[in-house]
């Protein structure tokens, strides 16, 4: 098979859905026009733990327009079949929250009732009139005060001995605040029953996960539930499982026999969907006098809920990022009276990297070594957690390109040595890593007789540009122009795909799209070479390529014909194929990760303690880049997210009653435009042939890792103050 010319892949194209988005025509979850839809508003528990003793709905029901108030008092019993974590669910181990099935309150904000009304105003007003009385118990919401679960442990070598014998030792404790995704689109669901079949328009990063969760909750066959989600207004992980409000919307629609639209308020995002858990993290590091790591001991406590045990990939960086003979890790989840966390951009890795990369900076300073040099000295030859070689690992190159492009040589290693007026200026860097995950995926490809193609997968596009990048893959594999490929996603009727998260969409879905398109192209070529009337009759199929919808001899473009001619002459309305991808089963031969080196320059007001990022650079080893423009946007966007984690973001709980006190965008601070002056991303040219057919390693997550520690390390360089707590705010620097 001749390789197809790559016209679209790797080209800096603009988004295929750009026009829809800039004209306001892209339809997000709550915006689908469903005839007769009524509005539902959830009533949230106002205690942190306890039982509901009574619910007075009279005032709400007396409101004109209010149709129904549903609570555990009158809700139908739902089967809630088991739907534990699998390739069809992301529900963590435990017993998930079952809406309106009993009188128990497990966390502040838990849904206790829902008001359905013909207008939004009436539903909102009605919800404010529902009076709920409780028998309240004091909630346990403090990570540092609650009892932990049995730990997950990892060990290699003898970390305690390694630490004892190390020439240089550090014992450091870090704390990282809880973060909320706060995508701009609130979570929203429209549910419509037709007989026993349910159609749901939902904000989700996984139509399949939402579909199976609804089916499990209601005891329906999976195929009786259809989930539609063509546009997702940001996710960052919050859409990776079907949350209670999705079930509530479907329940409300069933009870009222009307289509129901339910949009969470901004406040409700803070307890109605998950979050990046807070961590307390102790790290002990031992090295020799040259900075070669001897041992690392990690002890970390993380928030989870009382009813589900959420864990994430917080351990791998400590096992594989640096050459470390002795490692021990103790990872404890701490059940609290909170709702269940979920992955948030760079899950686990971002948290661990903040700790490890801050500590590496501290060690470099202690040893009077350049932080990059220290990292180079600890570059491993293989993945020490598995003994496997790295498929590709170009971290050294990230360092050198980054140092050169950022002007790292201008950094004065001595803290507090650069001042401009009231501002202390500092530079910092950090390494980043994220694993290259891949899961089975399928895609349906149809080439029509008019020379256009339709590609369908159940995948999502929460912003990275799945529509665009998959169109690029499909266009090149089919030999079509971008305009003649219609890529569709976000419908559970389309072929199954994994969750749109964990940076696996391009590797998994893209590989399935590639496979499906290759199959269709081969069918067409076969048809041509076997068709006596084709100019390509009798030619070796391997000598044919397709470009601009025209099949031709690779070495003689004049000999060939268009898809249209071929298909119509053969009376074929279309050609089609089901593409699929599955990562190799069994033991892997390689260790697959994407890497980065992230650099930051900050200014810290010497007396007022304010930190402002001046510029950042990320250099990425992410394998092949399908869509450079989009990849650039993703990287600089993650830097903005990382600035938030580093300097601003902190979900605050009032431990007296478990209330989140800053559940809004005026008090939970995320970066605004004025916080972000100059950001730059560089992707190393290349590909990872071992990872997947496209050679990609995933990039949406890795770009987030390393941002916060690079900033924290720059703050140290600017001020001489080592802050081991996120976010870094003025009070820590005064």
């Amino acid at each position, binding site marked *: 098979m001749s390789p197809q010319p790559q016209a679209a892949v790797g080209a800096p194209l603009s988004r295929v*859905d750009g026009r829809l988005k800039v004209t306001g025509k892209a339809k997000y979850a709550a915006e689908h026009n469903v005839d007769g839809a009524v509005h539902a508003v959830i009533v949230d528990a106002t205690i942190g733990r306890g039982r509901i003793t009574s619910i007075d709905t009279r005032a709400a029901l007396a409101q004109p327009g209010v149709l129904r108030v549903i609570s555990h008092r009158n809700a139908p019993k739902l089967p809630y079949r088991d739907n534990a974590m699998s390739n069809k669910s992301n529900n963590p181990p435990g017993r998930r929250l079952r809406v309106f099935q009993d009188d128990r309150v497990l966390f502040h904000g838990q849904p206790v009732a829902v008001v359905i009304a013909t207008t939004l105003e009436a539903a909102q007003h009605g919800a404010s009139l529902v009076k709920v009385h409780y028998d309240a118990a004091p909630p346990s919401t403090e990570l540092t005060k609650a009892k932990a679960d049995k730990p997950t442990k990892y060990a290699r070598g003898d970390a305690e001995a390694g630490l004892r014998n190390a020439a240089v030792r550090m014992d450091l404790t870090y704390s990282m605040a809880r973060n909320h995704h706060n995508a701009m689109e609130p979570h929203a669901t429209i549910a419509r029953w037709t007989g026993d079949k349910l159609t749901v328009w939902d904000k989700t990063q996984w139509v399949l996960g939402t579909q199976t969760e609804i089916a499990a909750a209601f005891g329906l066959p999976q195929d009786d539930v259809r989930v539609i989600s063509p546009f997702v207004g940001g996710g960052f992980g919050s859409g990776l499982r079907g949350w209670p409000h999705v079930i509530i919307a479907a329940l409300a629609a069933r009870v009222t026999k009307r289509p129901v639209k339910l949009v969470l308020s901004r406040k409700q995002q803070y307890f109605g969907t998950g979050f990046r858990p807070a961590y307390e993290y102790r790290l002990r590091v031992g090295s020799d006098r040259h900075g070669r790591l001897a041992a690392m001991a990690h002890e970390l406590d993380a928030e989870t809920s009382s009813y589900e045990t959420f864990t994430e990939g917080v351990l791998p960086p400590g096992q594989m990022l640096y050459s470390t003979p002795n490692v021990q890790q103790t990872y404890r989840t701490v059940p609290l009276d909170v709702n269940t966390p979920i992955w948030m951009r760079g899950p686990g890795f971002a948290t661990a990297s903040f700790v490890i990369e801050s500590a590496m900076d501290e060690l470099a300073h202690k040893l009077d070594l350049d932080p990059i040099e220290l990292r180079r000295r600890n570059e491993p030859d293989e993945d020490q957690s598995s003994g496997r070689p790295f498929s590709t690992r170009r971290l050294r190159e990230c360092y050198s390109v980054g140092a050169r492009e950022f002007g790292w040589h201008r950094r004065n290693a001595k803290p507090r040595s650069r001042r401009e007026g009231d501002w202390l200026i500092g530079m910092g860097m950090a390494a980043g890593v994220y694993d290259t995950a891949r899961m089975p995926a399928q895609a349906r490809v149809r080439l029509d007789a008019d020379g256009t193609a339709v590609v369908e997968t159940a995948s999502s596009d929460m912003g990275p540009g799945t529509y665009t990048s998959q169109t690029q893959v499909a266009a090149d594999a089919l030999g079509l122009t971008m305009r003649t490929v219609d890529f569709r996603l976000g419908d559970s009727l389309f072929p199954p795909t994994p969750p749109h998260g964990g940076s696996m969409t391009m590797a998994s879905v893209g590989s399935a799209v590639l496979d499906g398109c290759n199959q269709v192209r081969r069918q067409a070529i076969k048809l041509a070479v076997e068709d006596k009337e084709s100019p390509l009759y009798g030619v070796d199929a391997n000598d044919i390529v397709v470009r601009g919808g025209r099949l031709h001899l690779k070495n003689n473009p004049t000999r060939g014909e268009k898809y249209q001619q071929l298909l119509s002459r053969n009376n074929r309305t279309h050609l089609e194929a089901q593409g699929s991808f599955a990562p190799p089963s069994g033991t892997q031969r390689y260790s697959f990760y994407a890497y980065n080196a992230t650099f930051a320059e900050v200014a810290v007001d010497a007396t007022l303690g304010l930190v402002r990022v001046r510029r950042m650079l990320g250099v990425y080893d992410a394998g092949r880049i399908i869509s450079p423009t989009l990849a650039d946007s993703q990287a600089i966007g993650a830097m903005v997210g990382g600035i938030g984690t580093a300097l601003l973001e902190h979900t605050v709980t009032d431990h007296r009653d478990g209330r989140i006190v800053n559940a809004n965008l005026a008090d939970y601070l995320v970066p605004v435009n004025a916080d972000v002056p100059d950001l730059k991303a560089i992707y190393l040219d290349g590909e990872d042939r071992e990872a997947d057919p496209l050679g990609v390693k995933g990039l949406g997550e890795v770009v987030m890792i390393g941002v916060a520690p690079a900033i924290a390390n720059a703050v140290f360089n600017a001020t001489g103050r080592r802050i081991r707590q996120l976010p870094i705010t003025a009070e820590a620097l005064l």
Partner: protein
Amino acid sequence: MIAGGVTAGSALGDAQAAAEPAPTSRVALTVNGTRRTVTVDNRTSLLDLLREHFGLTGSKKGCNAGACGACTVLVDGQRVNSCLTLTVRLEGAEVTTIEGLADGDELHPLQQAFIEQDAFQCGYCTPGQIMSGVGCIKEGHTGSPEEIRESMSGNICRCGCYVKIVRAVEQTAGRK
């Protein structure tokens, strides 16, 4: 402005009083050049009017509290948060939303610039960013990137497209 600052505990909290239909008003306003007369619940925000009654879902609800800018539209030529604007107050007003910005098939230069600069990802804040950018340019706050950044800080983009949003506004202001 507001006399007798505290009114909490008004009689309207009771079922009896609240059972009356919520007051409505008749309002005539112009939306994207089309004059429309509607009878609205006094509580209906301009944002909910656009999204729930007119099917103009381009204006987005991000926070419903004036803290994100996703709902930004022009009212009488000025950028405002439509979530904090009560429809009942808009008698005679001219409202421009993202749906009314393009001239037929021809995009407004700022819409085009957003595409060219890749100034969005998920697209949810984008209509608000663009309407705010139109206001920013009109107000003349485009003297420098710093000025644009400050002037555009009322529009949160969680995907983090700020650098490119500034470029798009700069590009469009430069053309004028």
